[in-house]
């Protein structure tokens, strides 16, 4: 379809701005823009239709099943958006006097209360704007902790080989060296190998639990004590918190710092790649290093405490992706204590149901037929025998109107497809997906070529990614 710049007429446009009611001021000589600014010249009708067309070429949770493992693509309740749109939240300047933003502070304070209880942490800081931003922030807390204890030789962060790519990237951005620790044949952290790599240079250990295979680390307490005994701290990557709300808490497993993804577990929409929100929670020992000033309540009046002089400093401007927190709070208030647990139980039930129905057809390398909220299947066999890869399988799913699972992750599983149905899907949807998976498996065995050519019913066929990277065209040329 046409780009927005290829439509319209240069004399077209909307009439949005009023006449100037004060003397017009022109830019002083030497400071004026010289180059003509090229922007679209469209009527409102054309803009509206352009984006409606783009929306038709976009697949959201509202369009269909989205079992994108590790991303927790649950339904995004509408009430959350409506609350975020209240002018009392959306039209408040971040630098208003404290007595005029009591509602905003209450949102942060309430959300903190809920999340500390859910995670077993002592404090939550909402400044980080996304999961990776939260990781960076959490790791900086660990860094500050060791510095503060004059233990600055601790410069190693240990990360399992099944970790999200953001884990090692964040560790390295925060100034640490990354040590990878292997997984066992069963998909768990190799405790023996972990013991071998810890030492007096260990700053901390990052773990997703349930891990990225979808299994709960059976030796979690042993793992976190190994790190503690070596003098390091434990970091919980909250990507998979949706499996355990109300069932178990990172704080009780020996974790000292966590980040959460409000755009995963707490139902806020992902917007095609953000805005998310990646609040960081921590135990008391780390509170003084948090980036934001703490909110305090003095006789019902909320205000910011003076920031602790040991704070790592801010990681973004103002206080965080506030409207995302409003949505997450709305969600937590709606579900409450039993509802959050119910959500996790059903997320795990749905995943196990799908796994149970698929395990006889597909190779499931880990978990002995059980999982938490997601599971990973491997198409290594299909690839070897029929040359049908995980990519081919995913592309074939596109033709059947389903968003594919996460592909090629975690790295320790070959030809991986990671399936996370979430709790907001009906049994009918799961049954259809199960049939579809099986049907495509048969197709892959009988007519592999058709799989290589898929998708055929989508707005475009497979794009040439190599060409895109070799000859980068990154903007429209007027």
């Amino acid at each position, binding site marked *: 379809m046409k*780009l*927005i710049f290829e439509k319209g007429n240069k004399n077209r446009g*909307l009439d949005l701005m009023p006449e100037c009611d*004060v003397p017009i001021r*022109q830019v002083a000589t030497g400071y004026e823009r010289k*180059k003509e600014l090229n922007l679209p010249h469209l009527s409102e009708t054309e*803009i509206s239709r352009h*984006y409606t067309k783009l*929306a*038709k*070429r*976009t*697949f959201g*949770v509202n369009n269909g099943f989205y079992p994108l493992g590790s991303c927790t693509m649950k*339904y995004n309740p509408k009430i959350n958006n409506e609350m975020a749109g209240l*002018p009392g939240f959306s039209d408040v*300047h*971040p630098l*208003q*006097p404290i007595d005029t933003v009591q*509602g905003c502070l209450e*949102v942060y304070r309430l959300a903190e209360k809920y999340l500390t*209880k859910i995670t077993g942490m002592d404090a939550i800081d909402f400044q980080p704007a*996304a999961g*990776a931003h939260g990781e*960076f922030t959490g790791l*900086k807390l660990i860094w500050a902790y060791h510095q503060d204890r004059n233990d600055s030789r601790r410069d190693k962060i240990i990360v399992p080989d099944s970790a999200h*790519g*953001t884990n*090692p990237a964040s560790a390295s*951005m925060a100034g640490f060296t990354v040590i990878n620790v292997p997984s066992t044949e069963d998909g768990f952290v190799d405790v023996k190998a972990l013991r071998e790599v810890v030492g007096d240079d260990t700053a901390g250990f990052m773990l997703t639990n349930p891990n990225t295979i979808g299994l709960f680390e059976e030796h979690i307490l042993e793992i976190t004590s190994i790190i503690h005994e070596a003098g390091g701290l434990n970091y919980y990557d909250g990507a998979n918190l949706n499996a355990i709300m*109300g069932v*178990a808490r990172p704080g009780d497993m020996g974790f000292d710092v966590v980040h959460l993804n409000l755009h995963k577990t707490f139902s806020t929409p992902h*917007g*095609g*790649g*953000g*805005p998310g929100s990646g609040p960081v929670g921590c135990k008391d020992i780390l509170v003084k290093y948090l980036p934001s000033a703490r909110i305090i309540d003095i006789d019902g009046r909320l205000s910011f405490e003076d920031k602790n002089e040991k704070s*790592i400093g801010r*990681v973004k*401007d103002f*206080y965080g992706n*506030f409207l995302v927190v*409003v949505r997450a*709070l709305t969600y937590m208030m*709606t579900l409450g*204590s039993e509802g959050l647990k119910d*959500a996790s139980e*059903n997320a795990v039930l749905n995943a196990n*149901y799908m796994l149970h129905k698929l395990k006889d057809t597909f190779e499931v390398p880990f978990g002995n037929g059980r999982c938490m909220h997601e599971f990973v299947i491997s198409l290594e066999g299909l690839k070897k025998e029929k040359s049908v890869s995980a990519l081919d399988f995913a592309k074939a799913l*596109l033709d059947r109107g389903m968003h594919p699972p996460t*592909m090629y992750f975690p790295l320790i599983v070959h030809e991986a497809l990671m399936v996370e149905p979430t709790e907001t899907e009906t049994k009918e949807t799961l049954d259809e997906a199960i049939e579809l998976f099986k049907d495509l498996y048969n197709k892959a065995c009988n007519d592999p070529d058709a799989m290589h050519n898929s*998708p055929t019913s989508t*707005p*475009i066929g497979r*794009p*040439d990614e190599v060409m895109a990277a070799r000859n*980068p*065209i*990154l903007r429209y040329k007027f």
Partner: protein
Amino acid sequence: MGTYVPNTKDEQLRMLKEIGLDSMDQLFEAIPKEVKLGSPLDIPKGMSEMEVSSKMKKIAGKNKVYETIFRGCGAYRHYIPAIVKQVTSKEEFMTAYTPYQAEISQGILQSIFEYQTMICELTGMQVSNASVYDGASAAAEAVIMSKERKRKKALVSASVNPMIIETITTYISGTDMELELIPVKDGLTDLESLKNKLDVNTSCVLIQQPNYYGLLEDGDAIGSILADTDIKYIMSCNPISLGVLKTPAEYGADIAVGEGQPLGLGLSFGGPYLGFMATTEKLMRRLPGRIVGETKDSQGRRAYVLTLQAREQHIRREKASSNICSNQALCAMTAAVYLAAMGREGIRQAATLSMSKAHYLAERLCEIDGYDLVYEGEFFNEFVTTVNADVDVVLKALSKHGILGGYPLEGSDRRQLLWCATELNTKEEIDSMIQILNGVSG
């Protein structure tokens, strides 16, 4: 209790049975007993949608929404065309994930490609990424981007917004980079001092245009000082101002960054906002974050994909140029719809109106005894004045009339305010505020 779980208790039991289980608890057998919660979460019970709605409205009601705002300082209230919210509220855009599956994500990918083009046009730069978190993290990422094996010192003007300076400091603390501030003279970056601080270790010079005090920096002079050096010139700018002001590219900048919030995003108590980042083709592969590129599909049709991914965390892991994964995609789309609706003329008008109103406001303020411009330089839509009373007294008097006055600058003995005007401020508003201020005295 509200719930979004569709399956009935009956269905749940049937599903459990199929798996060979009797109860939900059995699903969690793999979790060691020692870490299982013994009791329900100590948080309130769930509520119906109606109850939640009423509770949240009460909380929102505790905030004051000012009718009139003369405060900016990093967050600006501009007019947002009606089409912007309608378009960006479409469920497909709201609820999609990062466009990994290009075949069913052409809508998001094309919108980002269009956004990247618009950011390049605004800044005059050649390449833009798909967005980062906000203006402060964009500046920090740019500083990190400038680092080279032998160049690790970032020179940042003290006339940059303090929140940005603090963010950069956090980002590079614990790494081998260091930050040095260039002092300010008469509200502007001190050029002599800048020259003296340049050395073989300097990786970049970062200035803000217009700067924290609203003043226009001599971007050309800094451009000439840095020309023919390997030092990267980073400029953090207000995107609306670029409708009329010289672009970072015209100043010779290597990297342009900024807070994209003025482009159609609400004030929202500080977020979500939008960090934009653009650079030269030469530095393209050092740019952090997602980038969308054009290519062809299997049928030879034009198509868009996430590209240059060899820079990114999911491929390079600890060697990635940044850890960024989720960015602010929907905010980037908001900016694109805003720019499409405004068009070249609309942006020029918004910029000219903002500047004109700010100058009128400054003139009128200076008619009051004790109110004077603190700096003489050229400004866009923000400026600093002295006030004739304690800032709290002044601001409270205005607040009573639904006006959010200028921002009290720290370290000014509570006698300086940083004012801002945009196209939303009418002459009538300005005049009536002057009347109120005439009635306040210290």
